[in-house]
């Protein structure tokens, strides 16, 4: 029977009520709006940044790789693709062009920053990598690309201050190539700093002989990629792999996936806090206006409209909040990418600031999410409003205890059941490689905490209120013990906010303690010397081997990377000089260290590798080493917080006996006793000459920990926000409950309570509610902290660590919160003492 005129009339009424509501509760409404906005802003900013970073990464990749249909490459970064294989591929009828490429990193004129040098064949490259096509410059003396010049991207030319025709020296290890700049690369992206030269020249100067780094394939128009790929995969040598474009994007998104999801969960928490604030605001709003709503119901506002009205009011908070959040999110995204780069300090992508491009559909999705959160928060109050008995509400106001007074055994049953379910969920493995069950566990722990609050308040304070106490204390205790809805809401807000804060503190502290401990173990030497990307120069290694070098001990390490699965980030291969029989002297093992039963190459894998590829100590692993597949024995699993996607350590002796070429890139140095400064001085000239990096272990340690602290800084801000919101919830709900009990308090005043007694009673009530909230919150916080440490972290980041609870910090946090809660309840107490007693009593019906 709802006509158009009817609808617009009801719309007018709804609008009047919303406007009146905003006018009378400005602060609470604005804060709920802000909280929703913050959640939306965080989520949207993370989305925008990540989108931009991935697009940026993909673009960067495309600009050096072109967009071939497929790439043939070695699985071992130390390996290469034999020319014979490339030639055979070129004869395949399905292949239109195969462009051979050599990619290496060189230093220009001994500058310490290495740049990419790409050797290509212009004719085949034109079809696959048009961005890398060189443009010859007439100022260059050499007249064409076959004459051995290099071409630099405009950005690189600008940085070096060089012009076509200038001479330069490219250095890789001890190999040096004196050449000239023959022109530029007009089609490269303005961010790109790279050099291009003819592949034959690069091969002649830097190798590899008779091989290339990659073959980039353009298929014939009628060829089908997937069938071609499967047939080729069968006859491809073991050390090679085929990578298609979709593998690249999958690898790219795998790279930062867990980090991203974790940030998104934080955003979700912010959004849920927003929903909680809408809940608290709307619940008190419904309670305050119960008589008004009852009157409207008596006048003929239908139950459905009473429900809708509260939902609409929620939406009226959520919609502007979400719109605000979208704009804030955009600003945050731009600001953060300028400050921290596309990975928010996560260290996955290059540090150039990517371009933020908002799109309509995700913006609408986040808008909808914000509105949904506020509707969710408004739902229970709306439901309560719909079910209030009109005649009763009209004469005696909001009924604080809806019919749900349950017998005590079932009160215990619900939290116990929830806790049990949480425990069961925590045992589940990751889903879609994400700790989804872990997140669900956290939600259940919080639900169990909230559900146990009435039980705790009733037993504890019920018992206490039977003690002989002065009247104000007694009344406060009784009020909380009866646990009316308002106290419940205030306590829940504190439970959730304190639990989340405490759990983050516990997780971060456990992590920091573990990293600290780990750094002790992995940095045994006083000094570390590293070359960026190219092997250490042989003259330096020779000089270090002479007796007059001021070092007692030197351990060398070479690094490479292996592709075990083209869809996943590469695994680091660390070739180290360590004792095969005693690897524990250098590697922090987490379990047993085994020796192979037969003569077999022996490796030790890192914890992330163990988690991602599901191999353990004592098992055999097939690695794509040195152009073939090698079965190796896993001698143990060691802790590694540095390489999230896995690392394999092999001893230098095993690597050499497999036929590997040991080219060290990193050195651990033990200077002679008391000669550290002599050693540093001794190293200075080669560092200068070869562009190396020297760091002492204390500096590395300090840097690592400061990076750690920086990457968790944002969580501290969120914790502070969560606590403020919890306290705000307490103040608002307490004030509302004072308001609702105006008549009761006025009666007390009339019976002889003075203002101070009333204020004491209300503040004590706040302190008691906060006490219960903090106590349960602490319990939940420890539980969630261990879920984060033992379930979420290993499943998302493949990092395990022991739980280390910083008790002094957690307890101090609880004490400060309690003090703040008492202050917050002062606000409510002031309202109680300001009640115009006579007026309240006179208006009693």
């Amino acid at each position, binding site marked *: *029977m709802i*006509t158009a*005129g*009817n*609808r*617009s*009339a*009801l719309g*007018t*009424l709804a609008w*009047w*009520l919303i406007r*009146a*509501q905003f*006018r*009378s509760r400005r602060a609470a409404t604005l804060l709920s709006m802000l909280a929703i906005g913050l959640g939306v802003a965080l989520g949207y900013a993370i989305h925008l940044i990540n989108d931009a970073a991935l697009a940026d990464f993909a673009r960067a990749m495309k600009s050096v790789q072109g967009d071939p249909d497929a790439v043939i490459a070695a699985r071992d970064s130390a390996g290469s693709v034999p020319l014979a294989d490339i030639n055979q591929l070129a004869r395949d009828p399905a292949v239109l062009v195969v462009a051979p490429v050599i990619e290496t990193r060189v230093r220009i004129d001994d500058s310490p920053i290495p740049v990419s040098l790409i050797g290509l064949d212009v004719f085949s490259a034109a079809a696959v990598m048009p961005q890398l096509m060189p443009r010859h410059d007439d100022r260059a003396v050499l007249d064409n690309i076959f004459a051995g010049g290099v071409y630099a991207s405009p950005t690189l030319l600008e940085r070096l201050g060089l012009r076509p025709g200038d001479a330069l020296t490219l250095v890789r290890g001890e190999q040096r190539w004196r050449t000239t700049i023959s022109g530029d690369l007009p089609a490269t992206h303005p961010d790109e700093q790279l050099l291009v030269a003819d592949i034959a020249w690069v091969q002649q100067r830097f190798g590899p002989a008779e091989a290339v780094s990659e073959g980039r394939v353009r298929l014939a128009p009628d060829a089908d990629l997937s069938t071609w790929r499967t047939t080729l995969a069968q006859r491809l040598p073991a050390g090679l792999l085929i990578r298609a474009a979709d593998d690249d994007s999958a690898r790219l998104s795998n790279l930062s996936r867990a980090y991203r999801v974790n940030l998104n969960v934080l955003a979700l928490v912010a959004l849920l806090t927003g929903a909680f604030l809408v809940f608290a605001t709307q619940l008190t709003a419904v309670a305050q206006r119960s*008589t*008004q709503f009852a*009157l*409207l*119901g*008596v*006048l*003929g*506002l*239908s*139950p*459905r409209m009473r429900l809708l009205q509260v939902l609409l009011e929620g939406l009226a908070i959520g919609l502007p909040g979400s719109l605000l959040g979208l704009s804030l999110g955009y600003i945050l995204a731009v600001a953060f990418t300028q400050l921290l780069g596309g990975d928010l300090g996560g260290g996955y992508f290059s540090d150039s600031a990517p371009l933020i491009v908002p799109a309509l559909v995700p913006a609408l999705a986040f808008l909808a999410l914000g509105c949904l959160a506020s509707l969710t928060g408004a739902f229970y109050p709306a439901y309560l409003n719909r079910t209030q008995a*009109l*005649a009763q509400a*009209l*004469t005696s106001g909001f009924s604080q205890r809806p019919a749900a007074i349950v017998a005590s055994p079932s009160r215990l049953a619900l939290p116990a059941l929830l806790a049990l379910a949480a425990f069961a969920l925590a045992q589940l493995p990751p889903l879609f490689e994400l700790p989804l069950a872990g997140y669900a566990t956290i939600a259940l722990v919080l639900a169990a905490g909230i559900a146990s609050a009435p039980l705790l308040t009733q037993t504890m304070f019920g018992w206490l209120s039977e003690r002989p106490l002065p009247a104000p204390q007694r009344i406060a205790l009784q009020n909380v013990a009866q646990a009316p809805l308002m106290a419940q809401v205030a306590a829940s807000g504190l439970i959730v906010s304190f639990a989340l804060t405490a759990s983050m503190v516990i997780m971060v502290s456990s992590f920091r303690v573990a990293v600290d401990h780990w750094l002790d173990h992995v940095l045994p030497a006083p000094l570390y010397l590293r070359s960026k990307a190219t092997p250490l120069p042989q003259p330096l290694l020779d000089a270090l081997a002479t007796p007059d070098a001021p070092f007692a001990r030197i351990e060398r390490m070479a690094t490479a990377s292996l592709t075990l699965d083209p869809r996943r980030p590469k695994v680091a291969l660390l070739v180290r000089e360590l004792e095969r029989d005693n690897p524990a002297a250098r590697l922090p093992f987490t379990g047993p260290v085994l020796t192979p039963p037969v003569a077999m190459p022996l490796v030790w894998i890192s914890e992330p590798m163990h988690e991602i590829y599901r191999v353990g100590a004592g098992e055999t692993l097939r690695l794509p080493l040195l152009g073939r597949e090698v079965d190796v024995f896993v001698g143990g699993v060691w802790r590694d917080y540095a390489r999230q996607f896995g690392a394999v350590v092999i001893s230098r002796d095993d690597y050499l006996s497999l036929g590997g070429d040991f080219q060290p890139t990193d050195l651990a140095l033990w200077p002679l006793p008391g000669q550290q400064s002599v050693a540093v001085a001794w190293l200075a000239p080669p560092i200068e000459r070869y562009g190396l990096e020297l760091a002492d272990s204390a500096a590395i340690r300090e840097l690592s920990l400061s990076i750690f602290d920086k990457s968790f800084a944002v969580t501290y801000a969120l914790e502070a926000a969560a606590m403020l919101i919890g306290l705000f919830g307490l103040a608002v709900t307490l004030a509302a409950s004072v308001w609702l009990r105006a008549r009761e308090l006025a009666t007390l005043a009339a019976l002889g309570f003075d203002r101070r007694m009333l204020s004491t009673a209300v503040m004590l009530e706040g302190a008691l509610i906060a006490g219960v909230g903090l106590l349960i919150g602490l319990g939940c916080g420890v539980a969630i902290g261990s879920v984060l440490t033992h379930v979420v972290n290993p499943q998302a980041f493949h990092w395990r660590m022991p739980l280390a609870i910083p008790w002094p910090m957690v307890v101090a946090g609880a004490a400060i919160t309690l003090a703040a809660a008492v202050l917050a309840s002062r606000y409510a107490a002031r309202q109680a003492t300001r009640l115009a007693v006579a007026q309240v009593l006179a208006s009693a*019906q």
Partner: protein
Amino acid sequence: MLLLANLEKRHATAARPLFSGLALTVAAGEIVALVGESGVGKSTLLNCIAGLENADSGSIRIGPQAVDIAKLDESARAALRARNIGFVFQAFHVLPTLTVAQNIAVPLLLCGVPAKEHGRRTRALLERVGLSGFGPRWPASLSGGELQRVAIARALIHQPALILADEPTGNLDPRTAHEILALLLERVREQDVSALVVTHSQQVASCCDRILTLTPDGLS
């Protein structure tokens, strides 16, 4: 008009019904006073008639279509109230967050009358209850007697078939009470509405067309 037949109400915890076999007819334009001891069930009867409480048996027919409110669901009752019933309460019950004019216009909105048609009607009615110029004021600034005039205007603006008044003058001094009641009766007669007025005041009751007393044994 209002037609009650065989009405019975018993509270779940009570030993005997508040009333049973209750029958009552109020013709259009007739004003009936309902008196009785405190706690006898007058307010409960009014609540049953308005569909705010459920009667245990019997029928309650209201308005020109004589719809039986006892057989309707909650939303249909709300709709019936919105169209056919006007309320005046002892405790005024004016929405504090709406202006006087908006308060009076609420029943119009609930009946689906668009806001642009309100102005003339609210102004006219405000004048007739002696509150010309009060439209933009907030309820907090009005006296009890003025508030009750607002409530009367609100009860009449949508021209309901039945006015239910529960001790409408209970909170007012005798002089104001008399004025207010006179006003209510005058407007009710003018609009040809049926009215049921619960009151403890003999003076008020004597102004009505008929006086009924509710006792545990029934109406007389």
